[in-house]
């Protein structure tokens, strides 16, 4: 069954490379989902409407989003390969006028596949990071931390 997102936004997402793992919801977004939270939206909107970790600049620049994951114990890395005991996130971005803005984040599962929340639509498991290239630009920053027992999913 197709998800509630527009197929035009994700031209590389096919029925063979992803599966839907939740119903659509607005209760959390991709940044929260990659951080392991499902009860709040993490969003640096300038009106201060949604949650953003204290002490981090409210900006969608990719460095601000990377700092959010840094507060959760993630550090920059340069490989997306599955490593035993290591949890990874990938931050997608697009470049506008020389500035890189974050657009999305995905988290690696124990299987080596990735899990993503697509806007206000469903969560999906996708085989590769490139499956979501399109509306979200492409993965630009990778971060890792030691996998906690609670994130062994």
């Amino acid at each position: 069954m197709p998800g509630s997102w527009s197929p035009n936004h994700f031209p590389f997402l096919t029925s063979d490379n992803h599966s839907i793992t939740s119903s659509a919801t607005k209760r959390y977004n991709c940044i929260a989902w990659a951080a392991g939270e499902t009860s709040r939206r993490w969003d640096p909107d300038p009106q201060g409407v949604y949650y953003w970790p204290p002490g981090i600049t409210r900006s969608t620049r990719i460095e601000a989003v990377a700092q959010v994951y840094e507060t959760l114990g993630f550090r920059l890395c340069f490989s997306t390969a599955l490593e035993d005991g290591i949890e990874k996130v990938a931050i997608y971005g697009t470049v506008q006028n020389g500035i890189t803005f974050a657009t999305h984040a995905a988290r690696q599962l124990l299987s080596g596949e990735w899990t993503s929340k697509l806007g206000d639509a469903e969560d999906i498991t996708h085989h590769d990071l490139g499956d979501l290239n399109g509306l979200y630009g492409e993965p630009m920053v990778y971060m890792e931390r030691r996998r906690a027992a609670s994130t062994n999913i």
Partner: protein
Amino acid sequence: MRRPWFLPIQSVATVIVVSAVTLLYGDAQATQEVVTEAPVCVYNTIQEPSCLLDDEALDKSIRFQKLLREWHEQRGSMSWMSDIAMCPAYQSIIGIGPPVVPLILAQLRSEGDEPDHWFWALRVITEVNPVAEQDQGDVTKMAEAWLQWGAQQGYAG
């Protein structure tokens, strides 16, 4: 000897005329009954609701629903609230100003546990923020806070 056949013809003609009048009278009476009842039906089904509707409120509601549909189409799978809020239809909703607040609150109430992204618009239009800091990002609690604020301001609950 020529008259006797004329009279019966005249009598037959009279019977035909009387029968026709009877039929016509009956139809006329039936028609009169329908016509007598019809204005009552028309009055009950058309006049009464039109007295209850406010044309201006109806126009606002129709415009709001149109902009809501356009906003859903425009925002697609955007992640950030700042992008979602910059959609032209969302900006048009904000542009309506204070009169749109009761419509937004009614829409928010109808969305139940899956409230849409109305908080930005409400905050910009009203210049208040009734959401407790610890509830930021919890959309269900945020909706509750705004609906409570709306009730305090006198918007229909």
